[in-house]
């Protein structure tokens, strides 16, 4: 019998330990360096994956007290780790991202210097996010947030010979620190009221109702986690940092750093304050989420840089997640975390393809790329899978989660009779189409169209960079096709865990503690609806595809059609692009030329929103302050 209780803390500590071992032993030798980093990443992955059985399948909650400081007299002073299905769900996302990013970094970062520092920071970032997700102590969570901010900032500025990197890192640091200060003040106020830092005890202590102090704490922490998950008024530095960081790090940012913010938000609203049955909090989250997804996607439509475009899409997709978890229903939460998972997968994949393009060509400027599908066919296929997933085309995973989000928002609208939620559904659907539009723009500008002269010699990226992309692509397809499996074994336990606060408190503080403090909620036993059957659909698709292919491809002789010529002479005018009879010249329709009609109709809006993203750090800080003030006022007026 293996004792699983030690696994989470070993995973976190192992990552931190290896972070320093890399610097000590691997500063000179790249093999030692890579080995240590990959072993640490894989070790964390294995340790967390080993917890699937006890937590997801058996339904246990694992608790661990640092130094065995168990609660005495109903007061938890020591730092505790508590792993229920919700934590573990996010922890799995974190370790998967870390492992794949680690494999990708080996080749991607090989041209950089001082890689010892890179791996130290990389492992520290991973360890801190894993610790943030697994911890049951709110001050420990804050410390992990701070370590996460440092590591992120340092990694953003890692290629400090580039102008954007320093600037992005500086903005990220300023806004991030303001956000963590907000969180810390919230924690301090909570401590003043409840005299505890343990999340389960806080939850029990707050059961008696909210006082003005705790409402202020709630507002401040809400804003603090908002900054960490980059919902709209707080989103500006994220776009800069994602763009400026090395791509393997951008993938970490969008795959786990902002998922950590989302996790904090769920923990805060569902478990600590148990505020999700308040319609005002629901309305606040759904409004923020809807605005986030719309502004994110419209900003993405206006971008000229591949990575910056992806960064704005990250913001937009987080809007979906926040909208869904803001509904406060079981279906809403499960669709929200499902979309968070899918976002990790497909956005990670897209960042990796962006990194591959950057590695191969040296630029991410949409106006200077084109026609790369001829030179990098494998990357192109991965990109298309990612793009179709994020746009929610069936049978990819984005479709499954988005469809759940529409279902849950509209169900919420019909339940409450509030038309605003139906509006959220419509916005979500339209944003989905706009997402597709902006990825069509990337497809046309980077992978299809005509190959510029200076990119004729581009080669496909090395195998070690393609492996993570293939894994991500496979996960994108599998989690879309076997959606029922994911929903049954991952989403349902996680959703039930978030709602089953009693179990969470009792496991940590001792049996009967929750009931003694007046929390009598029981498990809701949620199970997702059997919405559609993608496997059947896929089989049908295959039947039709095969029959069509038989007719088209094998019927060639019967119809006497001349064969498709593949090895035609490049100089042959017959196979040249049609230019109205002119000789073929390089004439590429780049990214910025697309969607003219759309932008023309909304030129006022685009001018305004692009002007708002002024790039001045003071403006961004002002947004944070104003938004925090508004959230605080809203909470004081409406939260009871």
């Amino acid at each position, binding site marked *: 019998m293996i004792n699983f209780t030690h696994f989470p803390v070993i995973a976190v500590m192992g990552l931190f330990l290896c972070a320093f071992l890399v610097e000590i032993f691997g500063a000179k030798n790249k093999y030692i360096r890579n080995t240590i980093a990959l072993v640490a990443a894989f070790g964390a992955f294995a340790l967390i994956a080993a917890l699937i059985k006890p937590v997801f399948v058996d339904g246990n909650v694992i608790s661990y007290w640092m130094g065995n400081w168990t609660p005495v007299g109903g007061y938890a002073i020591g730092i505790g780790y508590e792993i229920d299905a919700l934590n573990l769900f996010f922890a799995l996302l974190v370790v998967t991202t870390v492992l794949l990013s680690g494999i990708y970094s080996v080749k991607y970062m090989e041209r950089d210097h001082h890689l010892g520092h890179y791996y130290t920071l990389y492992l520290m970032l991973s360890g801190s996010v894993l610790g943030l997700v697994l911890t049951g102590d709110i001050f420990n969570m804050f410390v992990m947030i701070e370590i996460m901010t440092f590591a992120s900032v340092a990694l953003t500025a890692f290629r400090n010979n580039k102008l*954007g990197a320093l*600037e992005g890192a500086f*903005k990220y*640091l300023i806004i991030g620190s303001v956000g963590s*200060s907000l969180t810390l003040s919230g924690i301090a106020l909570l401590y003043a009221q409840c005299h505890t830092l343990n999340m389960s005890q806080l939850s029990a202590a707050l059961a008696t109702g909210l006082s003005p102090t705790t409402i202020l704490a709630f507002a401040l922490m809400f804003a603090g986690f908002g900054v960490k998950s980059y919902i709209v008024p707080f989103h500006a530095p994220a776009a800069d940092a994602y763009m400026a960081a090395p791509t393997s790090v951008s993938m970490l940012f969008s795959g786990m750093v902002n998922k950590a913010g989302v996790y904090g938000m769920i923990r805060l609203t569902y478990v600590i304050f148990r505020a999700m049955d308040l319609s005002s909090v629901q309305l606040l989250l759904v409004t923020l989420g809807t605005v986030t997804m719309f502004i994110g996607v419209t900003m993405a439509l*206006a971008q000229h840089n591949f990575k910056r475009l992806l960064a704005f899409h990250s913001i937009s997709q987080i809007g979906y997640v926040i909208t869904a978890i803001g509904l406060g229903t079981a279906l809403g939460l499960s669709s929200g975390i499902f979309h968070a998972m899918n976002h990790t997968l497909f956005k990670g994949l897209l960042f990796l393809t962006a990194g591959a393009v950057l590695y191969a060509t040296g630029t991410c400027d949409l106006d200077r790329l084109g026609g790369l599908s001829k030179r990098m066919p494998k990357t192109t296929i991965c990109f298309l899978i990612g793009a179709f997933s994020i746009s929610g085309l069936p049978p990819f995973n984005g479709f499954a989660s988005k469809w759940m989000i529409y279902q849950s928002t509209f169900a919420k609208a019909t339940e409450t009779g509030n038309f605003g939620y139906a509006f959220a559904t419509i916005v979500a659907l339209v944003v989905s189409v706009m997402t597709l539009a902006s990825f069509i723009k990337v497809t046309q500008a980077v992978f299809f169209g005509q190959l510029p002269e200076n990119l004729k010699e581009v080669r496909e990226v090395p195998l070690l960079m393609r492996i993570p992309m293939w894994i991500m692509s496979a996960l994108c397809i599998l989690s879309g096709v076997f959606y029922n499996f994911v929903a049954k074994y991952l989403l349902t336990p996680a959703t039930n865990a978030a709602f089953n606060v009693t179990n969470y408190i009792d496991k940590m503080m001792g049996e009967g503690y929750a009931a003694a403090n007046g929390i009598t909620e029981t498990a809701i036993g949620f199970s997702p609806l059997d919405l559609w059957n993608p496997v059947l659909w896929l089989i049908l698709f295959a039947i039709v595809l095969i029959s069509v292919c038989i007719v088209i491809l094998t019927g060639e002789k019967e119809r006497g059609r001349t064969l498709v010529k593949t090895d035609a002479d490049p100089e042959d005018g017959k196979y040249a692009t049609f230019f109205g009879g002119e000789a073929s010249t390089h004439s590429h329709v780049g990214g910025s030329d697309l969607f003219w009609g759309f932008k023309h109709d909304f030129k006022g809006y685009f001018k305004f929103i692009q002007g708002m993203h002024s*790039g001045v750090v*003071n403006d961004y800080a002002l947004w944070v302050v104003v938004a925090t003030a508004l959230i605080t006022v809203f909470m004081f007026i409406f939260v009871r």
Partner: protein
Amino acid sequence: MITVNYIVSVFLIVLGLYTVCTKKNLIKIVLGLGIIDYGVNLLIVSIGWNDGGTAPIFTVTDLLNGVSSKFFVDPVPQALTLTSIVIGACVTAMALSLVIMVYRKYKTLNADEVRRLRG
């Protein structure tokens, strides 16, 4: 009076936020962050204060006599403050090093001119 502490800490936080939002000099922005940190630290330390309490230190006799009846200040916020101070120092160091690098590349400390990433 403990109320003064709260007022001053809120004042410091607001002052820091004001600095971050309005001052265009990058170093002043970093200083603003520091002021916010001090305000939050003061807030946390004040929370643990108990009027008339002693330091939370037990002598051997106290322990031998069983549970102490002594009234002491809450030690946890002080531990939190120490952590927070360390983190604040790290933030400042990190930010200042970034400012130095930015100055080398951009030849300016004006926030209005450090804005290549926008739109």
